[in-house]
């Protein structure tokens, strides 16, 4: 497999794949940051350990995907140290910090489900076997992240005053911002890197969410300003205050 040194050398399919993997890896980076910030809210030692393990898992997955991006000329130097808030391509869903414990649980459930849904379409990729194996390993590890959030949703629901369903409904709108217009060309799918189209993955995500939450009818489709390279509407990047929290610090002290 040849190593690309410049983005100009990439084919359109490789450029689209690179963008999508960047989005998935950045989603995992920011989600790891969420776990890091919420860690001290763990409800027991076992809960604390679980959040810690999920944080570590997400950082590991993000770095493995960043490393895979080396195939497209991306360096760890670039992904970890030279990017600013406007360069991070995580989903809009993770822009707004958790408003409560139940909002945190609803959001991580949506985020874990969205990322796993997207990665599931790479498991059979014949065009990139390394990516297929990586996706499979990440999915196996992420299964327990989903069990954690589903377990919490069930527990919270046992209290009639719980807001977890409302929180999920609110977050679902932002979660769906990760998938664009069904009519736009889906190069990653048509070239065989992914085995499922983006619009089918959106449906698969909604079906998976529907097993836990009521999905309301008449969900609004993506806005026209949706950009595939960042998988979101509007301006690129994440809020500065979020970047300040999740960005790697003190480059001078980083071990080689």
């Amino acid at each position, binding site marked *: 497999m040849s190593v690309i040194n410049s983005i100009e050398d990439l084919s359109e399919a490789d450029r689209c794949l690179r963008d999508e993997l960047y989005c998935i890896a950045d989603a995992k980076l920011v989600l790891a940051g969420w776990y890091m910030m919420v860690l001290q809210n763990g*409800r*027991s030692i076992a*809960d604390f*350990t679980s959040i810690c393990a999920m944080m570590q898992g997400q950082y590991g997955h993000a770095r493995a995907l960043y490393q895979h991006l080396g195939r497209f000329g991306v360096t760890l130097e670039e992904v970890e140290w030279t990017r600013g808030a406007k360069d991070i391509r995580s989903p809009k869903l993770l822009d707004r910090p958790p408003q409560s414990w139940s909002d945190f649980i609803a959001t991580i459930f949506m985020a874990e489900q969205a990322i796993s849904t997207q990665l599931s379409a790479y498991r059979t990729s014949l065009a990139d076997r390394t990516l297929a194996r990586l996706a499979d390993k990440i999915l196996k590890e992420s299964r*327990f992240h989903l*069990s*954690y959030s589903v*377990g919490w949703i069930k527990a*919270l629901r046992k*209290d009639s005053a719980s807001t977890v369903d409302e929180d999920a409904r609110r977050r679902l709108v932002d979660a769906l911002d990760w998938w664009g217009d069904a009519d736009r060309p889906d190069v990653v799918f048509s070239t065989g890197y992914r085995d499922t189209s983006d619009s089918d993955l959106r449906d698969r995500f909604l079906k998976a969410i529907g097993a836990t939450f009521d999905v309301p009818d008449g969900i609004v489709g993506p806005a026209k300003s949706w950009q595939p390279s960042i998988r979101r509407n509007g301006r690129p990047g994440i809020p500065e205050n979020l970047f300040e929290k999740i960005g790697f610090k003190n480059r001078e002290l980083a071990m080689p």
Partner: protein
Amino acid sequence: MMKKVIDRQLELGGDKPEFYEVFARRDSAEPLTHIGSVEAPNAELAEARAWFVYDHHTWREMCIVPLSAIVTITERGSKSKVKVV
């Protein structure tokens, strides 16, 4: 500054936590062995907590059993828990 009021039930859910006993083996030649327990309000959360807490080996097989499902024979009538081997 106003003191934050914590609603325990709202934060923890309405379920009462239960103990789940955790059993695992590293390979198919090993017997399934009791390795510890976790407390959780339901099986999904117990599954996740067991997996993350007892991650000192790459288990080939792991399962959990609610303590309430265990019928004690020698310890009938006492409140003894399943003990780690």
